[in-house]
């Protein structure tokens, strides 16, 4: 009985996938073969990476990191108070759901689309990128932060509330310090994520290395594009190592291991 039902759902999934694949064009064999051939040519053109692009790409990469850094800081500064206000335990009835909705809306719009909107507002360049990254990060971190703050050990919250403190004091002396390691880990993750996301901000004219990536694609300079991708990869790997070190340095030692 269970097996036949599982088979039925599997068959249903298979039919839905085939139907969708046909609609997308994945079952058009001549087209697929041609596409795979093009990828081969494209990959061959990428080698060897063009060292001449390195100076230009490096300067753009620094701008990318600046966008990510400023954007992450703006996002954090906005996210922490928003996350606290999104906690029903800390705010007047009705405020938290409204803020959660606002945070969800900010996240629904992809960072790249915020980039388009802020290019319209601030003009072309990294200013628009940093503001877009900042806003998107606020929505994303806001949710991650309130989830962490809600996960704080209820005994700690009860013990501190019991002394008769204010809500602000409860946040400052119990919620934030108890969640600090998690908050820091999410912050570092967000920075890494933002480096990736600001590297494509240039596609819509919002600054950073993406501007050159798009240019190299349009000029068919795939070897220069490969240089840009390698520089991005190197930066992301270095950031990954650094953030792991920082996280390890700040992590709570569990009672069992001490």
């Amino acid at each position, binding site marked *: 009985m269970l097996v036949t039902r599982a088979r039925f759902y599997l068959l249903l999934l298979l039919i839905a996938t085939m139907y969708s694949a046909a609609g997308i064009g994945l079952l058009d064999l001549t087209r697929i073969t041609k596409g795979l051939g093009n990828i081969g040519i494209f990959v061959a053109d990428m080698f060897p990476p063009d060292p001449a692009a390195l100076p230009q790409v490096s300067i753009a990469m620094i701008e990318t990191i600046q966008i990510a850094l400023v954007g992450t800081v703006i996002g954090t500064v906005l996210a922490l108070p928003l996350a606290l206000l999104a906690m029903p335990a800390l705010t007047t009835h009705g405020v938290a759901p409204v803020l959660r909705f606002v945070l969800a809306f900010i996240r629904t719009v992809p960072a790249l689309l915020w980039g388009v909107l802020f290019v319209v507002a601030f003009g072309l360049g990294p200013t628009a990128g940093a503001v877009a990254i900042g806003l998107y990060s606020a929505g994303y971190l806001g949710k991650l932060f309130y989830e962490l703050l809600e996960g704080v*050990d209820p005994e700690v919250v*009860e013990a501190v509330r019991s002394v008769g403190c204010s809500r602000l004091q409860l946040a400052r002396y119990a919620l934030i310090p108890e969640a600090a390691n998690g908050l820091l880990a999410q912050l570092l993750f967000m920075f890494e994520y933002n480096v990736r996301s600001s590297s494509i901000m240039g596609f819509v004219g919002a600054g950073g290395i993406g501007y050159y990536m798009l240019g190299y694609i349009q000029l068919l300079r795939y070897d220069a594009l490969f240089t840009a991708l390698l520089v991005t990869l190197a930066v992301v790997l270095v950031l990954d190592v650094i953030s792991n070190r920082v996280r390890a340095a700040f992590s709570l030692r569990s009672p069992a291991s001490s």
Partner: protein
Amino acid sequence: MDAPPLSGASAFASGLAVSARNLTFGYAGSLPVLRDVTFTAPQGGITMVLGASGSGKTTLLKLIKGLLHLTNGEMTVLGQTFRAGDRRGLTPDIAYVPQGLGLVRNLTVLENALIGSLSRLPLHNRLLGGFPPALVAEATERLTRVGLGHKLHDKAYNLSGGERQRVAIIRNRMQNPKLILADEFVSQLDPITQTQIMTVVRDRTRSDGVTYIQTTHELDLVPRFADCVWVIRGGVKVLDAPVAKTSVDELERALRGS
């Protein structure tokens, strides 16, 4: 005030820190955790609430503190009477120490002790953080007296069980309460440390006139340290007596229900 006996300010004046009548508490849609519990706790003594796990001891403490609200009945705590439906604030004159103590692990020993004083900080410290030098000196002095002078700036997560207990005691002192509610306060400690800490607690109730109510599942603590004892089984009070008028046998029978 012409309040009836055993309620309102008259109960406080007559030497009772807590008196409750027909106390009932339950979560909506399930059986009550506590049913029709009536008891009194004299001012300036140690009352122990004896019961097995899940008997409703913790719920009883939270009701007295005001962390939970009565479903039915009436309770007078430090001269103030509460009935079902009353909203109460959490005031510093009633201290609550949860079973896990509720220390903020990422804050230092000194900061955890100062949390006790949060309700009596001047306005600028309430808004901007920090503690007045006089309170810092007081906390330092108290911590030094219990042998934690060399660990003032250690994070709470690095402490041993006995050290954490002492930090909780000092946090409690900084709060300056008239009534202390402690949940399984010494249950996780070895017998020697238990005796040391309970001796400190007893001396304090004798010298300051503070009322102390502690839950426990360990019968042998009762004759050694308590003045009064309540036995709770399955959410119902089965015994309420001065320790001098009861025996270990009687307590054991009440606890087991045989």
